[in-house]
């Protein structure tokens, strides 16, 4: 259904594309400048809206679910209730008529994994990866025409979800991280090959993002100079003021975002490589040093991780005799949700509504997780990858790119105010209709966890069962899940925890003896 709407919007987009040429060919601020001088909509026409006035009054803003994030909510609700299978079935029904695309594939892949459908999960993650490969194979012209068409349509109409979605960089890395988890649960060493790709991709993505940001910053500086020039002529508000208003909206998440040095410090790829190499080293002791190198690289990306420190310490020694190794990976809670942030900016031509995507933290009740055998604690899990911080850091670093979107949004709205105002009642109906699908791109991997935690320990061959126990901040027990270990075998366990729910999955027989 979502895809059908997209097709319809794209069709309309191509019609509007012809009109867009004039708008896009001109400098956005020149258009804005000329439109700002036409006083068609006045502040009095929007009663009851308090707005930003040079920082004197607080800005009226709302943050709501909209677009893709809203359509995914019923599935998220089922996950929260621990109905993993129902969530997976609903997601499959939702995407049944759609063409293959990145977002549907990764969401379904993760839901399949949490529903213990490993082959399906691998199929969907492979599909997502294949989709990205095909997108990358498009020629410069083909890619340019399609992107320009849909971007232009998106700028003019404000409908941000009509373009192809290739995932945010951190989502593409996590897609591979999850694929390697699925392989490991399936008992396949292919987990190593996939995790190697995840490590490579993270380095490439980092490099590309830095280049894009550098370009955006240059453009922003240029625009800022133009705006300041207009501002000197008292025709437009201060650009720094506008950008400061935008930056303020994202201020709440700044502390978490700055807890990681960049959005490209996901150590999970290296950690998974370490796990596979450590399992390998039971057959080939010489490979133990490879595991040490991988854990060391993981620790470099997350120097505070207790579990990585412990793994690095232990892998330097020989494996414990007559014991078996158990690796546990836990995906906790939900990553920040991509919502719609709305506020109104006063412009010389009237009030301009601004809509932007914003990642909002999803709180989790869980504060501690222990792995136990009876009453004995075998290990306490600790963080490997803080996805929440990575997502918010990505948002913070992308702020210059958001400035562009606001400029486009202001230009469009000012032009609209003028056009619709001239059409009277019909204009108001047209404006409402247009507003109904004017949302920024709110697509994002909604089922992702808040963080990837891990524990690593040896157990006696006699132990058949272990339990995962979650607690809140005050150490009150939230949930318990008992897991049966494969007999006399090294094991890998993956669990998803959400508040008072735990959903655990243990590996099929591994390739090691």
């Amino acid at each position, binding site marked *: 259904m979502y895809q059908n709407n997209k097709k319809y919007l794209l069709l309309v987009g191509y019609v509007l594309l012809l009109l867009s040429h004039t708008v896009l060919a001109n400098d956005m601020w020149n258009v804005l400048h000329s439109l700002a001088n036409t006083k068609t909509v006045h502040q009095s026409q929007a009663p009851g809206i308090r707005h930003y006035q040079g920082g004197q009054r607080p800005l009226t803003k709302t943050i709501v679910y909209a677009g893709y994030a809203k359509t995914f909510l019923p599935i998220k609700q089922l996950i929260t209730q621990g109905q993993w299978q129902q969530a997976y079935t609903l997601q499959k029904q939702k995407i049944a008529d759609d063409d293959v695309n990145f977002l549907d594939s990764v969401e379904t892949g993760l839901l399949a994994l949490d529903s213990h459908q490993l082959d399906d999960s691998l199929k969907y993650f492979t599909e997502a990866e294949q989709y990205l490969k095909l997108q*990358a*194979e*498009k*020629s*410069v*012209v*083909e*890619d340019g025409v399609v992107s320009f068409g849909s971007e232009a349509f998106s700028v003019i109409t404000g409908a941000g979800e009509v373009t192809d979605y290739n995932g945010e960089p951190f989502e593409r890395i996590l897609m591979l991280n999850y694929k390697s988890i699925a*392989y490991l649960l399936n008992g*396949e*060493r*292919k987990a*190593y*090959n*996939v995790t*190697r*790709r995840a490590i*490579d991709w993270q380095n*490439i993505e980092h490099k590309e993002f830095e*280049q894009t940001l550098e370009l955006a910053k240059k453009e922003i500086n240029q625009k800022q100079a133009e705006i300041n020039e207009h501002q000197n002529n008292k025709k437009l508000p201060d650009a720094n003021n506008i950008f400061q208003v935008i930056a303020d909206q994202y201020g709440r998440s700044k502390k978490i975002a700055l807890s990681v040095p960049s959005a490209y410090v996901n150590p999970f790829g290296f950690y998974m490589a370490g796990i596979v190499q450590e399992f390998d080293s039971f057959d080939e002791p010489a490979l133990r040093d490879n595991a040490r190198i991988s854990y060391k690289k993981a620790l470099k990306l997350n120097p505070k991780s207790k579990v990585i420190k412990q793994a690095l310490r232990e892998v330097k020694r020989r494996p414990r005799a007559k014991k078996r190794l158990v690796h546990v990976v836990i995906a906790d809670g939900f990553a920040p949700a991509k919502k719609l942030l709305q506020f109104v900016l006063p412009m010389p031509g009237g009030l301009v509504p601004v809509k932007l995507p914003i990642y909002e933290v999803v709180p989790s009740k869980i504060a501690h997780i222990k792995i136990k055998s009876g009453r004995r604690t075998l290990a306490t899990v600790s963080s490997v990858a803080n996805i929440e911080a990575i997502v918010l850091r990505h948002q913070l670093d992308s702020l210059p790119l958001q400035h562009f979107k606001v400029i486009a949004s202001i230009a469009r709205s000012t032009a609209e105010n003028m056009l619709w105002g001239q059409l009277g009642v019909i204009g108001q109906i047209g404006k409402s209709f247009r507003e109904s699908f004017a949302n920024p791109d709110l697509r994002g991997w909604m089922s992702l966890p808040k963080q990837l935690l891990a524990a690593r320990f040896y157990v006696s061959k006699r132990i058949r069962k272990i339990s995962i126990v979650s607690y809140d901040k005050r150490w009150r027990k939230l949930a318990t899940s008992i897991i049966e270990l494969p007999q006399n075998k090294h094991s890998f366990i993956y669990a998803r925890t959400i508040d008072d729910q735990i959903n655990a999955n243990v590996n099929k027989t591994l390739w090691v003896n």
Partner: protein
Amino acid sequence: MKKILLLTLPFILIGCSNSHLGGQSRVSILDDSSRAHLQAELTMSDYTAFAEKVTNKMLRSRLVQSWGRKRPKLIVGKLVNNTDNESIRMQDIYDRITETILSSGLVRLMDPSATSFDYVVKTELSSTRQYGNNGEELAYYKLEFKLFKIDGEMVGQWSDVLPLGKASRRFL
């Protein structure tokens, strides 16, 4: 109508020729052993040629030739895939290695579960990859054999590298 056809024909021809050239431009032959590729990934024919080349290197070595008619018992260990590609058909490479060894007649090939043997050859396929700014890729695949005696002494090592390149994105 005729004029329209005449006007559009050159554009169609340019389009066709460029798309053809575009396809070819993505293929890089880096040396005599590399093949034409649309992706910097190994194909079936690469597997077999690559496996054969390294196996023959081992069979032609002074050490193996010195065995003469002794025909020692040899185990080919499980081929380990340490590349960044889980889709490589490792069984095909393994089969090609054993087929080449068998047809040489120099050794008696034993099952990996056999307890009586003289030598074991451990095999590994690995890769490294470099990326350019416009989608260019350079992948080096390395196939390595290590020959060990029953007491663990390494007596020989052979390898070969297969470079595969993918040019930047097509323009048209």
